[in-house]
């Protein structure tokens, strides 16, 4: 029997690999979304397992040509199956939930009935929260570039033997929980805390109030505090990718630019910056996307007037028990972010990533 497979495989091994991949991924996603339950689910899981075994059999017993052509699909399989079960299936479940209606307020199961009202409500009732989420995370992303780029530059080009130590220092905050770091800022920024005290001592209160960074003599529970928290928490995600792309830049390219009568500034602008753009691009994605959905900073550093869409989604899920609406809001958030990312990658993306 195996010889039959191999003979067929010689002709179209890539089709066999692709077919097995899609079949297994589709079945796993169907089990994950509970489209297939009971004995059917067992059958589906058995088929997935059999397709893996078949792939291994073909890969070990096939001709070199077959093995070469089938290898990419075999290597794709673990990742594809993982995504099918833990990404596609939840995504589909979320989509389905977002179009469902709860038969009663505390019902466990929502009924799927193409209820687009959830999306209408998500848009009409939560406009300010969406706006704040994108404004705060956008400003925070720009700030992380402004702070992170010079830092990454210094570490990459001037770090010398201290490079690894400096990188380690960038990562060190991760040794403490995200929550604890954010809550710690509450006491640092509190009305009678260190930060406010210093600002008062140097008589900067008036200046910061004018800039809108303080409100009525307080730092915390203001939009500025939320943006600051986001910037602080996501800074390492900006520094590390920028560092990686800067580190790859060959210093001799700068020398070459200077040999061609470039000033240091234009060498930086025309050589270093374009080469580091993939890092900035990756850093922006790593910062902006999670920051837009973040609720921790707004929860602990914000006020009732600074809530972001993440807080609203959490509230709808956990307090209002309105799972369909919360799902619709999550989906809208995902869609807006996707649109942003597509536009962004069109304009700034590089071949490396976009």
């Amino acid at each position: 029997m195996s010889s039959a497979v191999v003979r067929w495989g010689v002709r179209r091994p890539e089709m066999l690999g692709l077919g097995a991949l899609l079949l297994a991924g589709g079945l796993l996603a169907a089990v994950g979304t509970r489209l297939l339950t009971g004995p059917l689910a067992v059958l589906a899981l058995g088929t997935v397992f059999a397709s893996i075994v078949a792939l291994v059999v073909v890969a070990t017993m096939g001709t070199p040509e077959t093995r070469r052509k089938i290898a990419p699909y075999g290597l794709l399989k673990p990742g594809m199956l993982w995504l099918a079960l833990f990404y596609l299936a939840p995504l589909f479940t979320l989509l389905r939930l977002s179009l469902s209606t709860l038969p009663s307020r505390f019902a466990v199961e929502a009924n799927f009935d193409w209820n687009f009202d959830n999306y209408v409500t998500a848009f009409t009732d939560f406009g300010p929260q969406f706006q704040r989420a994108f404004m705060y995370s956008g400003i925070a992303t720009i700030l992380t570039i402004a702070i992170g780029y010079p830092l990454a530059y210094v570490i990459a080009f001037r770090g010398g033997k201290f490079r690894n130590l400096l990188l380690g220092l960038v990562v060190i905050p991760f040794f403490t929980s995200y929550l604890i770091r954010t809550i710690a800022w509450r006491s640092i920024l509190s009305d009678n805390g260190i930060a406010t005290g210093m600002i008062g001592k140097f008589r900067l209160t008036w200046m910061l109030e004018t800039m809108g960074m303080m409100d009525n003599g307080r730092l915390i529970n203001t939009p500025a505090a939320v943006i600051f928290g986001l910037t602080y928490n996501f800074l390492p995600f900006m520094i590390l990718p920028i560092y990686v792309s800067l580190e790859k830049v060959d210093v001799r390219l700068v020398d070459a630019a200077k040999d061609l009568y470039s000033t240091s500034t234009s060498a930086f602008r025309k050589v270093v910056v374009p080469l580091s753009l993939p890092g900035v691009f990756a850093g922006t994605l790593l910062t902006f996307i999670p920051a837009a959905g973040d609720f921790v900073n707004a929860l602990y550093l914000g006020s009732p007037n600074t809530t972001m869409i993440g807080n609203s989604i959490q509230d709808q899920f956990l307090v209002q028990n309105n799972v369909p609406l919360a799902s619709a809001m999550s989906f809208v958030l995902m869609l807006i972010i996707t649109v942003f990312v597509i536009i962004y990658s069109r304009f700034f993306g590089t071949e490396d990533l976009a």
Partner: protein
Amino acid sequence: MTTRRPNPFTGPRSAMTRRQLLMRAGALGAAGMTLPAFLAACGSDGGSGASATTPGTTPGTTPGTTPGGGGAGGSLFFENWPSYIDPTEDGATGTVDRFKEATGIDMRYTEAYNDNNEYFAKIQPLLGRGEPIDPDIIAPTSWLANRLIRLEWLDKLPLDQVPNAANLRADLQNPAWDPTGEYSLPWQTGFAGIAYNSDATGREITSVDDLFDPEFAGKVGALTEMRDTIGVIAMSLGIDISTLTTFDEAKPAFDKLQEAKDSGQIRRFHGNDYFDDLSNGNLAITIGWSGDVAAIARDNPAVKFVFPESGATSWADTMVLPKGAKNVAQAAEWMNFVYDPVQAAQITAWVGYVSPVDGVQDEVAKLDPDLANDPLVFPDDATLANTQGFAPLAEDVEAEYDAAFSAITGA
């Protein structure tokens, strides 16, 4: 409901599929569908039995009965709010340890109950499907206990095994949230009123209007517990919160809160986590709970609790058995234990809330005479007359209240 209802989730397995059962359990929870109708629905399906069993329950655990550990001993799991019982410290033996010693019951006591809404969201997927949760006793606030009773997610208390339940304060018998008194025993009760830091306010506070004083702009807090925040404000507007039946009756209170939030008067809405902010003056004035403030005041005498002139809300946190609780006999022993005034006094002396148990004042007087005269812990009749409990709300009305409140808290 005077006789114990058969548990619709036990009994022989029927041919009903999981999905059908879930749909019906959901419909049952939707209120309006009575038990006979539910059973009829099961039967009409041609199932082998008149009732359905719960898929997912492990065999051998029979909800509603008391297997225990065989005779004396056994185990018990109580999930309560944080800092809500006297711990074993400074040479004193805490109530949990005294109970373990007295009964030989292996008790697990956790403090994972932090917020009514969050806890409800946590148990809903299980209890809503008729599956049991781990804790044998949980501590919902009265309004949530009322919701759980209406959803039929609770088992009745074995009150015949709790003789000390006779010590329950008269005003808590057959309360509005549990009219038959069969599902809940109060754990502690208390008040929500105004908490303030006199260093930060610079003056004594007497009225709810002070919350809206522009002088304190950005230094005012309020509780995320809708019934306490809206209740206190509504009472200051002359609204009787114990008889609310529609949203419109309480709307002026929501409007007032909305206005204060929009103007930046309110710094944040908080749950249990306002001690630091109040103590260090980030919050000058807030709506807070009586016992908490008593605890903060021990460290910082500037922090004070006041019954507003217009009145305070009264509430109760209860002990209830989630449907399918395994260790019912042990739970009864525990309730009996903490309803003994001698034991209850130990808890009161530590937590500083109002005990639901009669005779505690005399016992506390032996431990701490000052506390026995504390009007926050043992309020006199005049004070009690100026407090109101929030009316139990119908499901759709409650949804309106919750939606309006969460629109204000900004979430």
